[in-house]
């Protein structure tokens, strides 16, 4: 088990949005969190990288278990050295070109020397097919390209897990394909990923595990194929039915 959380809770303004979540991710997993809007998927992902502070719960990472709210700033930074996060709105550093975006975490945080950082950065950009855009600033790139640079930035530091928070939701439909195909290739390479997405077809074909959430709770979790063919909860079945049927009609 690479990463495990137990009984994670979170409230905003007195309203509980995560009601005691248990979730574990194994190395090599490409796990997708599905669920209707407002289920708490994004909040869960953000809590798992400490962008939100959970009210309670425990986290186990690399064999060490800690109560979440007791973790110090240093411990959180240490943890983040091993994780990466891809945002819905890309959040590329606007004052840095693509390569500098990718190498920032190397040179500044991990004290990698400039030459090595550049090589690793170019490798990461190459992996998302953007090596020839290395010197472009975010505003000179399309949304899809920006998100691929963001993925390269996540890859460059060689994380043990990458969190994806609706990585294609801010993109024009015709740009989602390039981002999803990069993610597909990462999954094939065995990268551990925890993905919040509404791309059901992507979840069905790429992930190995599905976590279905509703109303701050995990309704069902299991192997992707099993969840899609034999969902155990009626709610999961209904959600998948609504979200897959129109797509099948189209094709």
């Amino acid at each position, binding site marked *: 088990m690479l990463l495990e959380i137990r009984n994670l809770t979170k409230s905003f303004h007195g309203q509980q949005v995560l009601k005691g979540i248990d979730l574990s991710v194994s190395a090599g997993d490409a796990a997708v969190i599905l669920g209707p809007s407002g289920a708490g998927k994004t909040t869960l992902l953000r809590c798992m*990288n400490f*962008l939100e502070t959970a009210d309670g719960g425990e986290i186990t990472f690399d064999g060490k278990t800690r109560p979440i709210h007791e973790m110090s700033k240093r411990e959180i930074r240490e943890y*983040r050295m091993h*994780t990466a996060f891809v945002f819905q709105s890309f959040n590329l550093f606007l004052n840095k070109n693509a390569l500098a975006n990718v190498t*920032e*975490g190397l040179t500044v945080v991990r004290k990698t020397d400039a030459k090595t950082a550049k090589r690793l950065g170019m490798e990461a950009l190459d992996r998302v097919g953007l090596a020839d855009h290395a010197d472009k600033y975010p505003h000179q790139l399309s949304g899809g390209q920006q998100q691929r640079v963001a993925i390269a*930035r996540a890859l460059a530091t060689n994380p043990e897990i990458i969190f994806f928070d609706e990585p294609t939701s801010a993109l024009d439909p015709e740009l989602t394909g390039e981002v999803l195909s990069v993610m597909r290739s990462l999954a094939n390479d065995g990268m551990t990923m925890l993905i919040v997405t509404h791309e059901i077809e992507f979840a069905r074909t790429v992930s190995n595990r599905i976590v279905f959430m509703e109303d701050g709770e995990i309704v069902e979790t299991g192997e992707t194929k099993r969840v899609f063919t034999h969902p155990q909860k009626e709610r999961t079945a209904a959600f998948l039915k609504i979200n897959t049927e129109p797509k099948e009609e189209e094709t």
Partner: protein
Amino acid sequence: MDRLWELFLDSFPKILLPGLTMTIPLTAISFSLAMVIAVVAAMIVYVRVPVLTQLIRGYVWIFRGTPLLVQLFVVFYGLPKVGVLIAPFPAAVIVFSLNEGAYCAETVRAALEAVPVGQFEAGYCVGMSFLQTMRRIVLPQAMRTAFPPLSNSLISMVKDTSLAANITVTEMFMATQRIVARTYEPLLLYLEVGLIYLIFSTVLTLIQRRGEKKLSAYTALAKK
């Protein structure tokens, strides 16, 4: 007419010289200090450091709310009453930097608040600390936003240094007053010193334009 032209040419270097040796150093030193005050104050208010935030709000309130001339008089003519004697030039530097710092702190704070919070989150997620993200990502973007209004403040300050004549700093305006007292040509000489201030401001405006262009490398305005 010849006599006026001669006076103009004769007085020009006599006014310009204190401009170069007093007005410009006074502005440069005061504005540099003001920038340090502004950035530190803005960051404290931005992250809402308890107690310090209230102190800074009080400081901004007082220095923005009272006339610059009054502040100069309090420091130079008032403080000796309680045993604090400060020479004219340092007194002017203290007042100008504190006054300008108060205004610029608000400019920088607004610019910091304009940087999307996602920039911080992205910094944290690659492992950077708050200060690293601030220094490398957020502050550079904020300073780009703040650059035009800060340039405004700088140009304003060049002209405001003429008030230092009131506390016996022999800058350009005082030099002009002295020549007027000798020659009785106020119209010509005050127009002349105005012209020199205009030249200074124009140079700064040109520098501002070039600076903005340089800083715009990463914004969508870059190619315009």
